[in-house]
Each structure stands twice: as structure tokens, then as C-alpha cells.
């Protein structure tokens, strides 16, 4: 059936006397060709990487905007056009407010290494140092994996840890927000929320933009 005779092609006069030696070899070349072709095809087309995600909780809608301001140690970022970021620290005070506090001024920064990254590391130094210490301990096997995770979450959720509010105006793109959240994760900021802008902030950003 599937045998292919090799070598006996000469055709001598002994042919009739000798029993034909059956070769057990099969010419596998075409099969191998096909197998490799298929292999190449599947290697090329298969995608191993499943989509990666970022888990995030959004605040409920009825969150009172006035309550947002009660957060202590808060840093508010406002994303605007062309990848610019404005930020202010602490509570927001509109101009000529009742309490007579100086009006909030926005500071401008960007996504460069000396901009956002440095700022976040600086503001969140306490937590970053604590987590670095913990990972050092993890490396030397002083603490277990699970303990490390628990302590790191504790450190991030600490009352003294930085809280970040993320706001975006109508000119910001989705990528900006993702980049910012990503940077927060890198800089070990555990408490952040994406919230709506207040009208006073919108006005302030508009004024800043036309400057």
C-alpha cells in the first residue's frame, strides 16, 4: 500500500529469483512540507496576548460635588487640550470667596518625566518610601508575599497618603486620562477618583488656556 520502493529500480536478471525486499520507509517529504507550512501559518496568525485591562471604580453619580472638597491631602488634576495638565493642591477656592482665602491658582505641567512623574513622586514620597522599604524586605525574604501585598495596600490607603482627583475638560482625550491613571499606579498612589469638573474650575481652565 503505502510503501515506496527505493533502490530496486536497477532491474537485474536476479529479479525473478529473489523475493522483493519491502522497504519500510515512507517518503515523508510532502507531509513534512505540509506540516511545516501549517506550523508557520499558525505561528504567524496566533495571538497569544490577551487584552490587558486596568480595573477602576467610578464614583456614584449622586456624589455631592461639595463633599469632594473635604478630602485632605488631595491633589486635583485637570486634563485639557494638547496633553496639558493643570493641577492644584488642596481645596478649591474660587476668586472672591466668602472665607477670604486666596483664590486657587492652577499650575501647568505635562506628561514628561520631569513633569508629572517627578511631581507625583514628590507629593507621594511617604508612601513611595514605605513601599520601597517593603519590597526591599520582600527581596530579602523578611516578609512573605501575601504580607507584602497587604502592607502595600495598607500603605496606599493610609490616611496620610496622597489622594488624587482626576478631572477632564471637553478638549481632553481619553488617552490622557489613561496615561494619568497609569502614572498614578507607577507612583504608588492608591487613592484616586475620576470626577466631574465644577463650573468654577472650567472657567479657570478656560482663562488659563487663553493666557
Amino acid at each position, binding site marked *: 500500500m503505502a510503501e515506496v520502493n*527505493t*533502490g530496486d529500480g536497477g532491474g537485474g536478471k536476479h529479479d525473478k529469483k529473489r523475493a522483493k525486499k519491502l522497504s519500510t*520507509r515512507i*517518503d*515523508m*517529504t510532502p*507531509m*513534512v512540507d505540509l*506540516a*511545516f507550512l*501549517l*506550523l508557520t501559518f*499558525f*505561528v504567524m*496568525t*496566533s*495571538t497569544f*496576548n*490577551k*487584552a*490587558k*485591562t*486596568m*480595573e*477602576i*471604580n*467610578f*464614583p*456614584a*453619580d449622586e456624589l455631592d460635588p461639595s463633599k469632594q472638597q473635604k478630602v485632605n491631602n488631595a491633589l486635583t488634576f485637570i*486634563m485639557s487640550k494638547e496633553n496639558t495638565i493643570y493641577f492644584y493642591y488642596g481645596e478649591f477656592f474660587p476668586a472672591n470667596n466668602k472665607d477670604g482665602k486666596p483664590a486657587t491658582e492652577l499650575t501647568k505641567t505635562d506628561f514628561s*518625566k520631569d513633569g508629572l512623574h517627578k511631581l507625583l513622586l514628590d507629593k507621594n514620597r511617604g508612601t513611595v518610601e514605605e513601599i520601597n522599604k517593603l519590597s526591599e524586605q520582600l527581596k530579602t525574604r523578611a516578609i512573605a508575599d501575601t504580607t507584602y501585598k497587604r502592607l502595600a495596600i495598607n500603605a496606599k490607603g493610609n490616611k496620610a497618603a496622597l489622594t488624587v482627583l482626576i478631572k*477632564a475638560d*471637553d*478638549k*481632553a*482625550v*481619553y*488617552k*490622557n*486620562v*489613561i*496615561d494619568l*491613571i*497609569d502614572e498614578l*499606579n*507607577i507612583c504608588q498612589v492608591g487613592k484616586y477618583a*475620576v470626577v*466631574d469638573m465644577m463650573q468654577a474650575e472650567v472657567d479657570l481652565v478656560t482663562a488659563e488656556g487663553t493666557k
Partner: protein
Amino acid sequence: MPKIKMPKANTSLDMTTMVDLALLLVTFFMLTASVRVSEPVVVDTPSSTSEKILPDNVLLVSVDRFGKAYFNISNPQVRIKTLTRMGEQYKIEFTDEEKKRFGAMTSIGVPMEKLKDYINLDDPQRQKVKSPGVPSDSTNNQLGEWIQFGRIEAAKQAKTEKEKAESLGRDFKYEQMSFAIKADGAANYIAVQDIIKVFTKLDIYRFNLITNLEQAEE
């Protein structure tokens, strides 16, 4: 003819081991390969350093760069049931054939009124259709309805599967449906926020934002 026969050089190699290996690899790749169905929209997701992998059981809303929304459910059975519920809501009857076709489709970006025609198109034609996006504004919040029905049907499906597994005496691993948002990096944030508001109005606050993996800078 020479009298001494020269030994014939054997040119054939023993390829058995190589073939074994090659076929093993082919089998592996064939089994692991997943069919990628063409999406009606190209979404260029932004990158992040997050390494979390997207769960299998998801309700996915894609947002393209113009802020149009597309709806998808990963589980085909839940998809079909959701379509039935949506059909009841909008008084549109879908045949079994249409339901079957819908189960094999990916994201949809057409309003209910056009869905029947859209399902009945052939694959190549369907790709040519410019999807207007699933409407999600307050007067015509079809996206919200899709999400709501999808959620209900997913819970029902999980329940029936659990009962079935219990009656057969098997273990049942319940994976809750997660909600994923796949938005284009260039989309206006306010447009994405509007989609998120659709979810938060339905008391869904936890999302998976789909991103590309990027190497973290030290």
C-alpha cells in the same frame, strides 16, 4: 557495468522525530488558536503598564475615536438571549436563523431599527456598512437597555448552568460577568465619560478599561 557495486549513498534522512515535533507543534497551535472575527470598528487603545488580563466573561462596550458606542457580549448564548429580550422591547421578531447569526457576530454598532437588516447582511457586506453606533442619549438609551438585559440574561445563564452542573454532580465555577470599556486613545474624554455614565446609572461602578501593555520606565 562495473563489477564492484558501489554502495549507494543514502540521501534520505530519518525525519520521524522532526515530523513528530512539527506535528505536535501544529496540533498545539491549532488547538490554542482562537478564531478572530473581524470587528466593525478599529479601536486603538492607549497603553498602560497594567498586566491584569481581561476576564473571559465580559460585556464589552467599545468607543471609537468619534465617540460612537459598540456593544458586545462574549458569551454567545447570553448574546442571543439578550437579543431576544431587546426584540421583545422593540417589537421586533428575530427568526432562529437570525439569532444564530447574531450569536456568531462580534460588536454591533447599529440601532435596533436597523439591526435586523444588519444581521441579514453577508460578512463582507457587513464590513462595508458604516455603523452609526448604538444610541446612548437620554431619550433613546438603547445602550443602557442592552447592558441591563445583558446583565440579567448573564445572571440567568449562570443560574441554569449551575443547576445543570449540580444535577450532573459536577463542580461549577461561577465567573461573574465583568464590564469592560475599550475606548480609542484619541476619543474625547467627555464622550467616554458619557458611556461610563450609562453604566453608573445602572449601578455598575467597576470597570475594566482595556489597554495595551507597555513597558514601565524605571
